């Protein structure tokens, strides 16, 4: 039988190394501080991450990357999610790399990917706008061709990690077409460009989510990633690969929260016994375990399908719908198990609660993916 659900030896080692890294370099006090900052990282922490080779985890070797499988990247992200590690790691190393790998022309890959793998360039996707949606018809930001340059105008909203990013991947319309997915192009835009302004959207649960204004931002023709007008398909391919890796990050978070709740319910005594002895508490624990296990296995199957070039569309929607819900619910249940003590800003459960909320809609929320899944299951 081919069925083999164990991690490979190198994946096990990667997991151990990453969990160890989290314990050593990113303890709770650091996470709490980082969650408050606009970038979510410190120079020192980013240097350490670069030393581990992680920014290039999925970048092909020919572009100075590690060329790991998506499953291995999932294993790493699961470990990083246990903190959770804040900052632009996913935005740049996973989603950013994938978009450049899918969309970039050869010389762009040669220029951009090594810089991402070395941690010198930090990328983030600027796609969604005030009409918040992950569908192409919501893209209204315009890129006008002017003597070989492009002039970008528009407003990107709820862009993650905009303060940390050195470059944005801006999704913009270069042609009006009856098919909204046609006529969209991707641009690599330096965050220091004239006319580009960034403002963090305040909100305890909103994470590092930003408003990015593009006011006559002029970029050279070489900023166009790949071909003009066909950016949407490339973007979708990249997002589909990135989604289950993001899911793995959430699985790691949910697993960590579950373990905290298990430990607490064994040791917290009320009415003269550990609260885990109460069946009403057990019920919540079981619900948490079910969420975590549903998230874990839908996620890893989607990664396996992507790595083995199997049809994966349904699995990706499934994983994202299940996992985003799972992370959210597990955190809420944990607050119920912990009660008052978990309301502290310093309590690790609260880090995950904030993360589960601010990532809930990112790359499509559960209802979006359920809708997509429904359309695939029963074409009407």
């Amino acid at each position, binding site marked *: *039988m*081919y*069925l*083999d*659900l*164990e*991690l490979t030896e190198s994946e096990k080692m990667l997991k151990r190394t990453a969990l160890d890294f989290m314990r050593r370099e990113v303890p709770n006090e650091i996470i709490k501080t980082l969650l408050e900052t606009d970038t979510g990282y410190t120079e020192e922490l980013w240097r350490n991450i670069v030393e581990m080779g992680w920014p290039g985890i999925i970048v092909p070797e020919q572009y100075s990357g590690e060329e790991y499988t998506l*499953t291995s990247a999932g294993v790493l992200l699961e470990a990083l999610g246990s903190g959770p590690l804040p900052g632009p790691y996913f935005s740049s190393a996973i989603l950013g790399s994938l978009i450049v790998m899918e969309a970039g022309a050869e010389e762009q890959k040669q220029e951009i990917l090594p810089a991402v793998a070395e941690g010198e360039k930090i990328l983030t996707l600027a796609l969604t706008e005030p009409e918040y949606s992950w569908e192409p018809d919501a893209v209204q930001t315009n890129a006008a061709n002017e003597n070989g340059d492009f002039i970008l105008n528009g407003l990107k909203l709820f862009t993650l990690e905009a303060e940390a990013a050195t470059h944005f991947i801006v999704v913009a319309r270069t042609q009006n077409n009856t098919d909204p997915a046609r006529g969209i192009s991707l641009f690599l835009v330096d965050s220091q460009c004239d006319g580009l302004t960034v403002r963090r959207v305040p909100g305890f649960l909103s994470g590092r989510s930003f408003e990015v204004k593009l006011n006559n931002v002029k970029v050279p023709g070489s900023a166009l990633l790949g071909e003009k007008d066909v950016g949407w398909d490339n973007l979708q391919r990249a997002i589909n690969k990135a989604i289950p890796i993001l899911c793995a990050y959430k699985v790691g978070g949910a697993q960590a929260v579950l373990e905290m709740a*298990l430990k607490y*319910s*064994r040791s917290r005594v009320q009415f003269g016994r*550990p609260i*885990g*002895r109460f*069946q009403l*508490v*057990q*019920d919540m*624990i*079981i619900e948490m*375990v*079910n969420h975590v*296990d*549903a998230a874990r*296995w*839908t996620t*890893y*199957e989607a*990664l*396996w*399908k992507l790595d083995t070039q199997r049809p994966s569309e349904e699995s990706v929607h*499934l994983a994202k*719908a*299940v996992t985003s819900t799972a992370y959210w619910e597990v955190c809420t249940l944990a607050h119920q198990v912990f009660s008052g003590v978990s309301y502290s800003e310093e309590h690790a459960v609260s880090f995950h609660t904030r993360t589960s909320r601010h990532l809930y809609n990112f790359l499509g929320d559960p209802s979006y993916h*359920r*809708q997509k*899944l*429904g*359309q695939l*299951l*029963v*074409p*009407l």
Partner: protein
Amino acid sequence: MNFSLDYTEEQEQFAKEVRAWLDENIPEDLIPVRDTRKMSIEQWEKRREFTRRLGKKGWLYPRYPTEYGGGGLDMDFHFVILEELGKKGMALPPLYDMGILCAPAVLACGTEEQKKRILPRIFKGEALTWQLFTEPEAGTDAANQQTNALRSVREKDHFIINGQKIFTGSFPSKPEQLYVLTRSDLDAPRHQNLTSFVIPADLPGITVQPLDLFILTTFPAATGPTGANMEGVKHTVFFDDVKVPESCMIGKEGEGWKVTIATLDVEHSGGFGGATGNFVVEEFLSQCRNNPNILMRLRENPQLLDSVVEIYIGEQIERLWTLRNAGGMGGPYAGPQLALFEKMFGKRLAPLMAKVLGPYTFADDEQWGMGNGIFEVGQRCAVALAPGGTPEALKIGISRALAVGR
């Protein structure tokens, strides 16, 4: 990782052998196990014959040791047998047989003599076994046995059994063998007062009576989507001064709970049946895609698609946890977790399907009803939570395995 259930070359070779054998040995006109509406005594007899043939071949209990009449195969080949039987509309076992629960107990706790005497008859499909744990006063509290098995005063190497068991067996099968839990000591503390037996079903003093339940037709098993054990009607069994020789006692006197645990671990572990999906859900999806009446409902109200998705998600989780358990990657709680999920998913299925399919869901009718397990789901949601342990009992098992419970 590899989630693939495709056959390896070795498995493909074996599958050819299995397919050829099945073509030769499946009795003519045998209806698929899912087609519960057409179940009849004649059909049951055919399944019984087919069960014997499978047993003789060693494929009824493929993974048990050959020295006791099992197949001696590993999981790779067991899986092929399940798959190929499934393609023919059959399941393993093809009829209600709680030998699947009795055999592990005998293997774990029986003497060598008992293993040689009892196991081959189970494995060869010669002795259909019923499990008799539940009593009117021993439901979820299975240790609260009131059926007494007391040493005979005149013949010290015999026990006399008196009491009543309930919710066991199936129609129209008659058991050849009973796997019974009893109270053998009226004074010993709880859990130390029990003794297990495997006895012939035709001993004097044993009366089997069908129960008048509101599930008058047949319905699929609660314990997994394989379609095995589909016959529905349950029985009560009375013991009036039933004399049983000591050689029928499994394990030591007073250690019946230990034997029972060996069974419950298997019973609460879920099967391998959902590894390739849930046939009821597959049938449901096919109705959604192909039945014009249902397509019309979905087009009129596309919101119903979310219920389709809800069902699909449940199926996928069930499938993936089955793979996880089969792949040995589940924790100590994984068995009861899967069993619990199957039950709770079964419970949710009926209202979700009714929402999408409308009243067609419940019609048991050649023209307007839906086959392949759909109409049974309506009944299943109401009555299938208890067999094999209530959800609450399973939750207690999960909690203990997670070291939060007692």
